[in-house]
């Protein structure tokens, strides 16, 4: 049986609401994680991120000083910090379509709408660890590949140009791990 050893993962939780931070810390400890860093606004979150280099960042959207989108932009700046590829989960009560698209276009890895559930959080983390996506850099975007599915019928102006660039196949780590598990 293949699983995640949460003891190996370190999280940074950024939320201005102390109750939400406590809920997230409780869930992460419940999964088996020992190291959970916390910050209550975007500026403090960036400082903790720079100092501790967590494996996964979980951030709120609306926060004082700078918000979750601005934080994501700062983390995703190439050359500005040690790990612009860090997975970022945005946890928010804003689940309207335009908000989700704005978060995606800023470079978040996973989006999770409140209310918080252990299952939903676990699924996001599982996806991050087992199915990492490649990053795409264009003139206007740097972040995880936003195309999770291939749409062969799409013929619009936003199709990428160049060779096989439209279809990026990244074998999920889960498949590899399960293949290893099945091997004699």
């Amino acid at each position, binding site marked *: 049986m293949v*699983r995640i050893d949460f003891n190996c993962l370190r999280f940074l939780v950024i939320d201005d609401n102390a109750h939400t931070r406590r809920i997230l810390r409780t869930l992460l400890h419940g999964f088996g994680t020992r190291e959970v860093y916390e910050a209550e606004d975007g500026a403090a979150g960036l400082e903790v991120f720079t100092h501790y280099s967590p494996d996964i960042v979980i951030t709120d959207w609306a926060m004082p000083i700078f918000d979750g989108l601005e934080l994501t932009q700062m983390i995703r700046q190439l050359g500005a910090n040690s790990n612009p590829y860090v997975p970022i989960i945005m946890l928010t009560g804003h689940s309207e379509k335009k908000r989700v698209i704005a978060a995606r276009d800023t470079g978040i890895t996973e*989006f999770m709408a409140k209310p918080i559930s252990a299952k939903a959080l676990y699924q996001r983390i599982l996806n991050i660890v087992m199915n990492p996506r490649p990053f*795409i850099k264009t003139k206007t975007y740097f972040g995880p590949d936003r195309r999770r599915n291939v749409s062969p019928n799409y013929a619009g102006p936003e199709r990428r140009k160049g060779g096989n660039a439209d279809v990026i196949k990244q074998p999920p780590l889960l498949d590899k791990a399960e293949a290893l598990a099945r091997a004699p």
Partner: protein
Amino acid sequence: MTTKPSSPPAVTTFADHDLIVPPNPLKRAVVRDNPGEAAPDPVACAEQALFEISGDFSRWTESECQRLDAARRAVAGGFTDKTRDELFRAAHDIKGEAATFGFPLIEPVAASLCRLIEHSPDLARVPHTVIDQHVDGIIAIVHCNARGNSERKAQVPARRLRLVTEEFLQHENRHRPGYLDEEDAPKLVR
């Protein structure tokens, strides 16, 4: 242990974009159990951990209500950017936490208050009575300890407040055709 990539990412350049495959330091967390040694279900463990702190949820909800009440009093003299943000955040936090804390009935009331603040083009025109009714409704439901979804007494005013808010927003946004339709687009994630 850090996530700092140990080797440079593989970069493939195309006509209008680069495809970057960074090293995946998280793969160290993927482990295989020995046959017959299944680890406990992490989701069940996390739910149990949450249950163990659930005794605090009523107190936390009460403190969120006090914060909302203070924010409501702050806007009584008129909206500023600061008082508007605090009222919105207080309502928005309650909306997000309500189900987790065992008070799902306050979620639609808090959501209605959020919509009222977020989509009113001129907050000075929002009747304070409507804001008060939302805040008082949330506090009343919490004080009645109306947990669960079965409390009909709480559902009726919640629906009524939602209707009043929608009617007000439709009127206030009549010069912005399609604005509310766009805002009401289906939710993409759960």
